[in-house]
Structure formats: C-alpha cells, structure tokens
C-alpha cells in the first residue's frame, strides 16, 4: 500500500491553463505539505495543513491554491500556468507539526509549454 500517493505522475500542459494535483495519505497523519523541487533540485516548502487548517503559506503566487477536504487529502490547484511553474511537486505528510519525519509521495512532474 502506498503511504502518500499523488496523481498524476506526469502533467504536460500549455501556458494559461488551470490544472490540479491530488494527494492522499493513508498513514493517519495530521499534517500535510506541498513542496516544489526546481531544476536545480532545491526543495522548497509551499504550503502546510494541519487537520485541514492552513499553517504554512510561503511566498507562493496566489495562482496556487491548496485545498484540504479532510486531513487525509491535500490537493493543489494552479491557475493560469506559467513556464516557470515547471517543476516536480511533492506532497508529504507527517504525524504532527512537531518536527516528526516527513513522508513524501513520488512527485508530479509538471511541464508547462
């Protein structure tokens, strides 16, 4: 059973489109995250939710909007996609916000053309 699963694995789309990435965790964790890994392999946190409540919202364009329908799901919707949005997006979860280890999904490679 995959602990943190995200779909789709690959997403190729054109500039200006709107797309969503879904994430689900079956670990019973309270906290979920979205990370972005750019071409230089730097991983940066974008958002974090704890029990469906937004607790971290880094400097991310408001074209990116996370949604957490329940604590096992955290989806990421991106409006008006730009070339610079091309990256690998990772979903992760942790038991709590208290520094517990992160469990990552296998990523969604987004390519904007």
């Amino acid at each position: 059973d995959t602990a943190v699963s995200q779909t789709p694995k690959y997403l190729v789309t054109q500039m200006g489109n709107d797309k969503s990435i879904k994430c689900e965790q079956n670990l019973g964790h309270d906290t979920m995250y979205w990370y972005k890994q750019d071409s230089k392999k730097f991983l940066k946190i974008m958002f974090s939710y704890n029990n469906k409540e937004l607790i971290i919202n880094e400097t991310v364009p408001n074209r990116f909007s996370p949604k957490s329908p329940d604590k096992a799901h955290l989806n990421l919707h991106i409006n008006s996609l730009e070339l610079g949005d091309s990256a690998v997006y990772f979903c992760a979860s942790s038991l709590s916000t208290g520094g517990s280890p992160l469990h990552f999904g296998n990523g969604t490679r987004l390519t904007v053309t």
Partner: protein
Amino acid sequence: LAKTTQPISMDSYEGQEVNITCSHNNIATNDYITWYQQFPSQGPRFIIQGYKTKVTNEVASLFIPADRKSSTLSLPRVSLSDTAVYYCLVGPRQYSSASKIIFGSGTRLSIRP
C-alpha cells in the same frame, strides 16, 4: 532557519563506510537535525533524526558534536543501491508559519563496484 552546507558530491566503493558532514553554524537551541535520502524520480525518504550526541538506527548513524554546529551521517558498508542524493535539514520542532523549511542542495553520493 539554520542554513546548511554539505559537499556537493562524494564517491565511494561498495563495502566502504561513508561519512557525509553537514555544517549548520547558526543552529538554534530548539532545532533538530534530520537527514533524507532521495533516489531519481522519487520523493525524499527519511533516514535519521537527532538532537545531540549519537543516534543509530538500522540504516545509519548520526553523530552530533557538543556545539551542534555540524553533524555527520554515517552509512556503514555501502552498496550500489545507496547511490542517491542525501539532504541535511535543520529545523525547529514546531513548523510555525514564520519558519521557512528549505532543503539544501544535498550531497550526491555515487557508489562504485
């Protein structure tokens, strides 16, 4: 958040012990040190976490000197499958909205037969 510095890359051979050092000179009192491993096309995987002295699990050991300004991940008897990027992460117990959780550039470890 404490900035971390790691070697960009390291090479070793199967069966050797590999030590990867991470510098974090401005680590805060409530910061923990966590190491992750990332294979191509996968999300990072938690390896080990510690606060001070030495921590050991079935995969690795983490050595932290008294001043906590650096830490060393030790991988005993590496195999080809240990070829990956290793990230050192320093962060507070509570990931508040004021925190920026950033993975560094990591150390690309290559193991040769």
